[in-house]
């Protein structure tokens, strides 16, 4: 029983090892991610987008003003 269980665990572990190998072959931007530099890019993009959104809101506000004048 113990032997069977042991071999099953070994088999499963070897499967995960093979699985990981499969993925690791494919080139991804792992260094960028692990060094944390990706956060700089995300922060930049988020700030640009929020800026544009504020711009849109201000257009919305000014339009509302003009519409109310009429």
């Amino acid at each position: 029983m113990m032997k069977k269980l042991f071999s099953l665990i070994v088999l499963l572990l070897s499967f995960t090892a093979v699985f990981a190998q499969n993925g690791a072959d494919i080139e991804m931007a792992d260094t960028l991610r692990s060094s944390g530099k990706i956060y700089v890019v995300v922060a930049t993009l988020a700030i640009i987008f929020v800026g544009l959104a504020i711009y849109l809101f201000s257009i919305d506000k000014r339009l509302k003003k003009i519409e109310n004048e009429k």
Partner: protein
Amino acid sequence: MKFMYQTWWKVLAVLLVLTTIIAGFLIQVPRLPIVHETIRNTFFHVPMWMAMFIVFIISVVYSIKYLRSADPKHDLIAVECVNVGVFFFVLGLITGMIWARNTWGEYWSNDPKQNSAAIAFLLYCAYLVLRNAIDEEQKRARISAIYNIFAFPVMIVLIMVLPRMTDSLHPGNGGNPAFSKITDNNVRMILYVGFIAWSLMAVWIATLRYRIRLIEYKQNSLD
């Protein structure tokens, strides 16, 4: 119509786009050959098309409404929705071309979906040209409304149906595995958030353009 002047859905749109930007760059994506890290383009390229579909649908709805009511406001909504839709169309085409350069090797590889998207683009350009060609206001509104109602199903067939019946490089077309087969739930969830986010953004921009257009229209009719 009150919906147009409310703020909550605009804030929601901004928050959802922010979610896709942050999560889109940071979540784990499946390691796939060919696309590699560019699979993250899914979160930004595909929602452009969804945003386009949504504003085009709204445009058709208001074209039909115009034919029933002859209210010039409905015509103005229809045309501004097409304007914004064409803008997102261009964004979708350009982002798709950049992505294609990296994965399929060329900006334009005459992929059926690329070609029919280009034809559909011309179809909507023709709508805008047609509008400018007719001087009389009511005639212009009526003819362009009818054109719009016919153009929409043709666009759907060109982009959604025909490429699926031949061999296209896009996922889910021809012999290619469907999108859901090659991605995991995380990717799809962010993609759906992106669909809602960018659709709301497109609708927002369309309402802004419509409101400006309405003021112009009222001014012109006073002169």
